[in-house]
């Protein structure tokens, strides 16, 4: 996203943030639900973007981590625990499970790794469905309470939307910090060239596990917000198709781009609403749109922007070089 002037970027960011706070004030219940869902899915997709986009580790299990977070939050808050405590447990649990799921990635890569994570995703779904003493089985868990924040009840859609938006803001800042730290560079090195990374002292094993664990933990955060958002959970939303949806959000938005997940989640959550008038054709249109996009730009929507900016930079640089050269020639 470099190439824009810095003040312009800051102004644009402020407009978006103010817009996200002010505009939804007039939204109805359903509009706020959709927007809250966007915020929650953005968090989950950001986690997957760390694992897949930055560190290059394919995972088809992000939906399972959303499920782990959601069940942790649902079980704890229906037993009287406050949501922040539940979120911390969701983070710890999905971080730990994600760490363990990272071990196969030390041995297998690419589509083999995809299959390992796919198997895990199925396993998690079966646990949600079959261990009914804990999860309520197919009947799920209902009456999940929404939290009080600084004494304010967030039962109504608007306050809870702000809870989701605030969480998204915190996660966004944390991820921004992470990817600009040496860890972010190490993740990228892991993706681009693990062999060279190792020879530069980068402990690829530890960073791979960390990429999985942190990405999964963000899935857990998203789940812990999803449960109070819907106030009712059952195993179905956390099956493999959620993992595939999240994968698509990351790829369509632009894997390895910071803003990719926001955009990808927006398309995945909002586009079905916008295409609602097409009724039965919505999924077909959606599928065709995704296919066309990926044929045109395999690096997603932000990939298009990135290519355009890179081209402009190259042109500017060669123009500068031409000027410098002609000056040299006149000087001689």
């Amino acid at each position, binding site marked *: 996203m470099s190439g824009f002037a810095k003040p312009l970027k800051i102004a644009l960011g402020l407009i978006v943030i103010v817009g996200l706070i002010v505009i939804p004030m007039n939204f109805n219940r359903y509009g706020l639900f959709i927007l809250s869902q966007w915020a929650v899915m953005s968090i989950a997709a950001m986690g997957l973007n760390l694992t897949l986009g930055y560190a290059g580790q394919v995972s088809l299990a992000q939906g399972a981590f959303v499920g782990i977070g959601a069940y942790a939050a649902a079980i704890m808050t229906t037993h009287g625990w406050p949501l922040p405590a539940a979120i911390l447990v969701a983070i710890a649990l999905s971080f730990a499970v994600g760490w363990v799921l990272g071990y196969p990635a030390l041995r297998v890569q690419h589509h083999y790794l995809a299959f390992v994570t796919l198997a895990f995703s199925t396993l998690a779904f079966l646990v949600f469905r079959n261990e009914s003493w804990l999860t309520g089985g197919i009947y799920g868990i209902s009456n999940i309470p929404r939290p009080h924040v600084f004494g304010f009840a967030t039962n109504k859609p608007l306050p809870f939307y702000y809870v989701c938006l605030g969480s998204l803001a915190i996660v966004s800042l944390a991820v921004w910090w992470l990817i600009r730290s040496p860890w972010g560079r190490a993740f990228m090195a892991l993706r681009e060239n693990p*062999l060279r990374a190792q*020879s*530069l*002292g980068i402990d690829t094993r530890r960073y791979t596990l960390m990429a999985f664990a942190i990405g999964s933990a963000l899935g857990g955060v998203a789940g812990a917000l999803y449960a109070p958002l819907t106030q009712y959970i059952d195993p179905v939303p956390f099956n493999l198709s959620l993992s595939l949806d999240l994968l698509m959000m990351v790829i369509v938005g632009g894997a390895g781009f910071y803003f990719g997940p926001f955009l990808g989640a927006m398309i995945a959550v909002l586009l079905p609403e916008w295409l609602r008038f097409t009724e039965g054709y919505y999924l077909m249109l959606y599928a065709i749109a995704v296919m066309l996009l990926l044929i045109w730009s395999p690096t997603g929507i932000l990939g298009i922007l990135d290519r355009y900016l890179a081209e402009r930079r190259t042109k500017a640089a060669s123009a500068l070089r031409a000027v410098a050269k002609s000056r040299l020639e006149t000087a001689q």
Partner: protein
Amino acid sequence: MSAVLEVSDIKKSFGGIHAVNGVSFDVREGEILGLIGPNGCGKSTLFNCILGQLTPSGGEVKLDGKLVTGLRPSELNKLGVSRTFQLLQVFPKLSVRENLILAGQEHQGNMASRLVGRSDAGLTDAANQMIGFFKLDHLADEPAGGLSYGQQKLLDAAMAFMGGPRLVLLDEPAGGVNPSMLADLKDRLVAINREKNATFVVIEHNMEFVMSLCSRVMVMAEGRVLAMGRPDEVRKNPAVIEAYLGH
């Protein structure tokens, strides 16, 4: 002079092929040891065994007298052993400076400070110094992938020196580099060798480069050491002429 690296009886087989078949040698502190031999004689495999990229089928590697066989490449790198690769291994999308910062970052602080701290200031200085040293100033902010082959080779070497290594294994640093840039590279290697007291092992096919740079030369053929000695001795060795140099 004491030995920095002691390699004893390293073996590596792939199926029935003995790529390295019992190689032993010492690398003395501060020297530049050349490693030559025909293609497929096991030079790069030997490097990979020493550096932990491959697990040897047998034998030992000692660094400063301590056994390091079986350590991972990243662990060896933290002990001060660095390398370059035969094929280009820079990060093409990162700028020259970012490549060097990446190459140095794991040598500062620990995992926690690399996440929480902002330790880039010192790293950027070190990267800028390295850029100046290798005369890459005008390219510092260019993506590494846009550099010429020879410039990328220089960057690759510069990256290997970022952590201040004691021992650097260079795999064909001169391959594909034009003569004027090669002179530059040699000049830089000699400077680092003298000033930083870094020890080198250099695989190279460019005889002129090897013979003028190295204090000793080891010749390998068919997975074994054929000869070891001063460049002029090796050049006259009949077995070496037969196996590699030609008449």
